[in-house]
């Protein structure tokens, strides 16, 4: 990111910042805030689950697991998450290595295209695969013969979830690879090791913490995933936790209690994952001394396998990214699901797009999503910046706790958060239910970890001297923060902001529980259109959403690069 990271941030690691009287306060405040955001609704959900008619009751737990054995569902959930993670790592890690380290042709383009699914809402991507590979009417099956591929059931779920998780794995691995000093590999090469040996003995061991973290993140997000299990699992009678929770929530008035019963084991799993992830991130610091500057060497030559490897990468890109997008585009022109042919081409029209822009519901969904995404991103990054500054710069006791608390929402599946918030606000004396504020609370809770992470990454790259110099120049705390810290951390904060905007634009699982008519967001609008069977509208809406998101991200990235270049010119 920035190049002035070469100055060691703090010599002794934790120096109480001399001129601030109570540095504990902000850290305590954010711990309390996150605690409140997460624990209050969760506590209420538990209470609804276990208390009934004024007494402790296991009625809902018993009822919940009478439907389907806990063991079976837990097993399916784990199988789904582990399978998707394994496949995503298998694709994402080599892809990252090829892009960052080797002379793969067109690697920048490959990277840009491979990251595209990040901006596409998961529900849209899943629906695109249903259009492609539903056993009867799927486009692939109508071209290649019925029954060639079947997207419903566990196998389809794993593949689609994995494809959608690859960009995340790719991003995390590429970042770790970039910060890896190439001279570590080059010295192994000069020591006489072959390229495969270098990868196996040097690169992979150094990357291990980052790879483990990527696997854990992808595992947790698969466990929490709602769109794939609901759209591909339920029709194939493959049930995981999230699908059951969603099903339970459809039931009134005691659906929330039932959902709570299903949520408990899921929460236990994701919490375990998050705790592991937090301890991993802490331990990873010992590796940073090794990686440090990340001097860039020459890309490693792939030699004769250069073009075959490129062909393989292209095949992946074609299947996982181009094909679903083409399917959406095609469907958007068709009155009903039909394979490309002379007849269907004759029926092609742009009416679907007219419907999108004529519909007040979809326009409102656009407005709601944009509003919520920018508000959530701004809030989380602002909180993150202040907290990260204190936690990086001051040796405040208890910042571990603040760090850990900040990880908490990661372990909270969107559906569970939605259910918990619903349980809380439906009974609260005054309520924000029925307003966008409730959705905003949910979004801020969900995305606070990302705001904190990116902000603290940006802050820890700033040398302490740059701030000390401002103090010595007579600048007050606020002047220093505003005129030195913010401009320098700006590119990093902006990157975090873009990330939260992208995630918020895709958000479905909490929104679908919490929205009231009038507050549909994009993913919910797509979901509803699909449930209504208006495939053409789904296709058109999907294309528009993808294009808008892409344009937003591109614009933000350009801004970010220009801003970043201006700031991060190398020192000396």
């Amino acid at each position: 990111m920035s190049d002035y990271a070469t100055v060691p941030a703090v010599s002794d690691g934790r120096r109480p910042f001399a001129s601030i009287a109570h540095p504990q306060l902000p850290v305590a405040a954010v711990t309390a805030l996150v605690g409140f955001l997460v624990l209050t609704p969760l506590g209420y959900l538990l209470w609804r689950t276990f208390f009934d008619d004024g007494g402790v009751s296991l009625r809902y737990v018993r009822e919940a697991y009478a439907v389907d054995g806990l063991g079976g569902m837990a097993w399916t959930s784990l199988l789904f998450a582990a399978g998707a993670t394994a496949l995503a790592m298998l694709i994402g890690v080599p892809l990252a290595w090829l892009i960052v380290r080797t002379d793969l042709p067109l690697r920048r383009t490959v990277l840009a295209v491979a990251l595209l699914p990040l901006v596409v809402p998961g529900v849209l991507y899943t629906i695109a695969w249903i259009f492609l590979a539903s056993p009867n009417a799927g486009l692939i099956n109508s071209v290649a013969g019925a029954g060639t591929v079947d997207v419903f059931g566990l196998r389809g779920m794993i593949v689609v979830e994995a494809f959608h998780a690859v960009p995340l794995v790719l991003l995390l691995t590429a970042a770790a690879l970039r910060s890896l000093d190439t001279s570590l590999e080059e010295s192994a090469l000069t020591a006489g090791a072959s390229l495969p040996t270098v990868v196996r003995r040097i690169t992979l061991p150094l990357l291990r913490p980052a790879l483990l973290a990527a696997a854990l993140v992808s595992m947790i997000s698969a466990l929490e995933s709602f769109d794939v299990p609901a759209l591909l699992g339920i029709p194939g009678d493959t049930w995981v936790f999230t699908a059951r929770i969603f099903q339970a929530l459809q039931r009134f008035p005691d659906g929330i209690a039932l959902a709570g019963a299903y949520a408990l084991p899921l929460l236990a799993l994701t919490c375990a994952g998050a705790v592991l992830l937090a301890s991993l991130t802490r331990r990873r610091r010992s590796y940073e001394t090794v990686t440090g500057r990340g001097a860039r060497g020459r890309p490693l030559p792939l030699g004769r396998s250069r073009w075959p490897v490129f062909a393989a990468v292209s095949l992946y890109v074609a299947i996982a990214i181009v094909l679903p997008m083409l399917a959406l585009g095609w469907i958007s022109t068709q009155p009903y699901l039909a394979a490309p042919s002379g007849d269907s081409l004759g029926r092609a029209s742009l009416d679907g797009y007219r419907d999108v822009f004529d519909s007040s519901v979809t326009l409102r969904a656009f407005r709601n999503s944009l509003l919520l995404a920018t508000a959530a991103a701004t809030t989380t990054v602002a909180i993150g910046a202040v907290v990260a500054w204190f936690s990086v710069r001051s040796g405040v006791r208890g910042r571990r706790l603040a760090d850990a608390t900040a990880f908490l929402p990661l372990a909270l599946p969107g559906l569970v958060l939605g259910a918990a918030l619903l349980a809380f606000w439906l009974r609260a004396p005054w309520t924000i239910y029925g307003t966008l504020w409730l959705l905003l609370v949910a979004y801020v809770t969900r995305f606070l970890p990302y705001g904190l992470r990116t902000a603290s990454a940006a802050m820890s790259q700033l040398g302490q001297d740059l701030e000390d110099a401002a103090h010595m120049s007579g600048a007050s705390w606020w002047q220093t923060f505003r005129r030195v810290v913010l401009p320098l951390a700006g590119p990093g904060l902006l990157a975090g902001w873009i990330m939260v905007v992208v995630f918020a634009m895709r958000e479905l699982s909490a929104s679908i529980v919490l929205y009231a008519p009038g507050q549909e967001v994009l993913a919910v609008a797509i979901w509803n259109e699909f449930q209504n069977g208006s495939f053409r509208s789904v296709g058109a809406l999907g294309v528009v959403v993808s294009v808008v998101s892409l344009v937003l991200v591109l614009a933000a990235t350009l801004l970010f690069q220009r801003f970043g270049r201006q700031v991060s010119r190398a020192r000396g």
Partner: protein
Amino acid sequence: MLEVEGLVKTFEGRHGGVVAVDGVSFTVEEGRLFSLLGPSGCGKTTLLRCVAGLERPDAGRIAVDGVTLFSATGGRFVPANRRELGMVFQSYAIWPHLSVFGNVAFPLVSRPRRRRPPKREVSARVGRVLEAVQLAELAGRPATDLSGGQQQRLALARALVTEPRLLLLDEPLSSLDLQLREEMRLELKRLQRELRVTSVYVTHDQLEALALSNMIGVMRGGRLEQVGRPRDVYTRPASRFVAGFVGSSNLFEGVVEAGGGDGHAVVRTAHGTLRARSETVAPGAAVLVVVRPEHVVLELDADDGDEGWRGVVVTRAYLGSAVDHVVAVGDVEVRSRGPVRAGTIRPGTQVRLRFEPGACTVAEADDAR
């Protein structure tokens, strides 16, 4: 001008407290440059940061111009941004998002509104100080375009623009390469003397300290081991540590045979007697005698039966401006440095060692630490 009294600073470590500065007192007079010299980890930077206000000491007092900036007993701590001192950081800490001008102007425009100079004065003052460090023509450039030496000048200009009462320099030359460092050393001295700005200079480089300072404080383990003028610290080190750290030296342990009233003592060592400078040592005391290599003269052994120091040349090294010899005397090795024109002596040759009069100094006796 600057008074530091009984300063103590402890850091909380994982295994209890670490005392970084352990009861340090010194004063710096108006317009003088005071160096804090010592190996890494001796507490010199922490001490400087305490003076700057970037660290809060645990005990002691700091005053500038009679104004108390910190007093543990008085419960007074003026924060760094109110002390109106100038500081040059080891990393320069040039703000990469500002231009050269912007960096230097920052201290002026950060002032409280009523004390902020008008725009015209800001640019005049920035221009003047940039002129002084010879960066005037680069004012509009992004600060990150500057070379290492130029960034160093920029950091200096930024520290000087407010005409601070006290200038603090934290190893300002250590990130420069050798040639540039020598150049900047002279430049720094010229500026400091011209502006007569009172300065505290932290360094681990004895040459820098000797060349720049009016006074040197040698630090070790959080304490000041010796404070004195450069010449005194060099020629009359107070301890084995100072002798070893400030320049290379030969150390001989011995016993005082006769303490002369003329400021000299005769010391008997295992290899012969020495006449060493000393103020107050009683006969019979165990002492350490310091002899600088350039004060050891080698002569080809005439074997005239004269009592004296004899040895065998072990190695010689040609340094360009001087020649070094290592001579084995009994079981110790003595280093000698002489002018090139004196020629070199082949290893294995018997030589006689002569110590220049007044060049031997008695350092402290029992160097327990």
